[in-house]
């Protein structure tokens, strides 16, 4: 008997990973990002969310390699005097939390509905897929505007600051579930006519068990691929919402709200407030997408199983 670790060492998955320079590099960068994001409170020079640390006199200091820059703020400060480096670490953290949370919500809704639509077929399928079409035809920005408007009426504008992260997670999560539902449905429809499903029915297993224990594990490869790409999409959505002022508040900036707060000062010469978090975001989304591409190629059985 081989152990799981040995199996993994000999797997095609690892083999193709080690041969693909792009995937390896992306993975290293991604791990670097994740470590930074989750270690942000310990490694950043200051806590940008604590207003006691912020001195307005320090605002718009350029990065240290430029005239007027100082070692105290290696990447300069924003318009409120926050250290850019620390704010970018914290912003990345917020973006990742919202991205992962949103994908978890999307996956939970999408997998359940997609499985039901694909396996039960007929009217259930028709209703669920039309629901997905309707959901898709709403731009998520419009949903976000509605929801934050409703939210502010119900809870009052003051509490928005504390609840911005869960709210954004839910908005982005709810608006993208049809992607998962459609992908899952397609793979379930391919699996459900295989004989092992009929064998499970002959045993007398209930539909619920057949769907979740027999069909779902065989449809999960497509979920893995789409999840990685959806994390990148969710991070982008969060940045877009924050950029429009519908996302994270200025006191707790994510990368998107940082870019937004900088664009007012862009033409007065303080380019770093916008450009640095922008590059940071682009690099993060890029490595996720590159890894997702590689994963799609590896998990595509047609490419190696013949």
């Amino acid at each position, binding site marked *: *008997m081989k152990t799981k670790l040995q199996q993994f060492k000999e797997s095609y998955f690892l083999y193709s990973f080690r041969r693909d320079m792009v995937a390896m590099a992306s993975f290293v960068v991604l791990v670097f990002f994740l470590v930074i994001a989750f270690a942000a409170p310990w490694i950043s020079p200051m806590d940008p969310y604590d207003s006691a640390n912020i001195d307005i006199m320090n605002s718009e200091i350029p990065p240290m390699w430029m005239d007027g820059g100082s070692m105290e703020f290696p990447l300069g400060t924003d318009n409120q005097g926050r250290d850019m480096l620390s704010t970018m670490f914290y912003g990345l953290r917020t973006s990742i939390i919202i991205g992962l949370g949103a994908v978890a919500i999307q996956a939970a809704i999408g997998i359940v509905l997609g499985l039901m639509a694909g396996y039960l077929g007929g009217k259930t399928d028709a209703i669920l897929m039309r629901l997905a079409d309707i959901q898709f035809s709403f731009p998520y920005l419009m949903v976000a505007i509605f929801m934050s408007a409703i939210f502010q009426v119900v809870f009052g504008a003051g509490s928005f600051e504390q609840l911005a992260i869960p709210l954004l997670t839910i908005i982005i999560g709810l608006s993208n579930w049809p992607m998962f539902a459609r992908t899952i449905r397609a793979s379930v429809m391919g699996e459900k006519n*295989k*004989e*092992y499903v*009929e*064998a*499970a*029915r*002959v*045993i*007398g*297993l*209930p539909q619920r068990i057949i769907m979740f224990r*027999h069909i779902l*594990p*065989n449809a999960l490869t497509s979920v893995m691929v789409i999840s990685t790409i959806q994390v990148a999409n969710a991070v982008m959505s969060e940045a877009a919402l924050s950029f429009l002022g519908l996302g994270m508040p200025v006191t707790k900036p994510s990368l998107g709200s940082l870019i937004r707060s900088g664009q007012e000062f862009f033409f007065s010469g303080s380019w770093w407030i916008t450009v640095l978090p922008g590059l940071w975001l682009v690099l993060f989304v890029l490595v996720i997408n590159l890894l997702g591409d590689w994963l799609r190629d590896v998990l595509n059985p047609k490419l190696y199983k013949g």
Partner: protein
Amino acid sequence: MTTNHTPLLRVQDVVKHFDISGGFLDQLRFKGGIHLEKTTVKAVNNVSLFVNKGETLSVVGESGCGKSTLARVILGLYRPNAGKIFYDGQRIDTLTHEQWLPYRRKMQMIFQDPYASLNPRKTVRQTLEEPLRFHNPKMTSQEAMDKVAYVMEQVGVDPAWIARHPHEFSGGQRQRISIARGLILDPDFIVADEPVSALDVSIQAQILNLLMDLREKHDLTYLFITHDLSVVHHISSRVAVLYLGTLCELASANDLFNEPRHPYTRALLSAIPKIGEKKAKHIKLKGEVPTPVHLPSGCVFHNRCVFARDRCKKEFPRLNELPNGSFVSCHGVEEGWPMA
């Protein structure tokens, strides 16, 4: 169809049609006014047969003649459009999922393709334990393990391989595991849907012998679906011949092979190559098998039958019992037309 004892399984006038007409717009027709037209595949039409306890009934026919559909209707995977199915005297085609459960233990199925019939994500142990645990919730894991090991030995798979996944086995071994799954609940009745046709010829004999040994040991009754006539004679007590979803002839294996009555059966049997035969007496049928979407009128075989007369085009022949106990549905046999 009358029998003087209760057969284990009785299928009575079962009809299964599949609607393939699609949505509303696909059904719309404009010929002769606007109306909706449904397109159905008539997979099984008025099939009646019975299986006695302890026998092996083979169902033979060309591909697409409804053999597999019949098997799935019998096991409740499809609901029949009409007709009745009795198991041990109890009607089973109208049962709900929960009412079916006791019969699931008694009726099991072996599938055609051993590469598709085992869940690729489950180990042999998981595949074999699942039915046991589901039907015997109180079973301890030691009991379940013992039972799995016992059945694996029975089908000739080393119990040491219990933790492996299906892709680590060859086709023949997979089919043995698939048979083990069919046996693990100690069923009385097994439907085998072309269990050897996806295997190498060298393995086919092994699997067939295994199935026959298991029948002896466990007192099983088989409904054996196949298109391979050469194996039918060896393994079956009786044979049912299907053509276009209709039963042509149901007779004991010896009667059928020595003296086929229905014109289709004769043509089918004449296609078996025999060793040492100088001149092939192959009966050549004209035309193609019609599609099951548009069945021919009357006897479904009439447009290819060399003996067909006017009555065959108009009237669907009933299944008649002959003095030797065979059943044939043919006007010619019924009226004694000269058929040589």
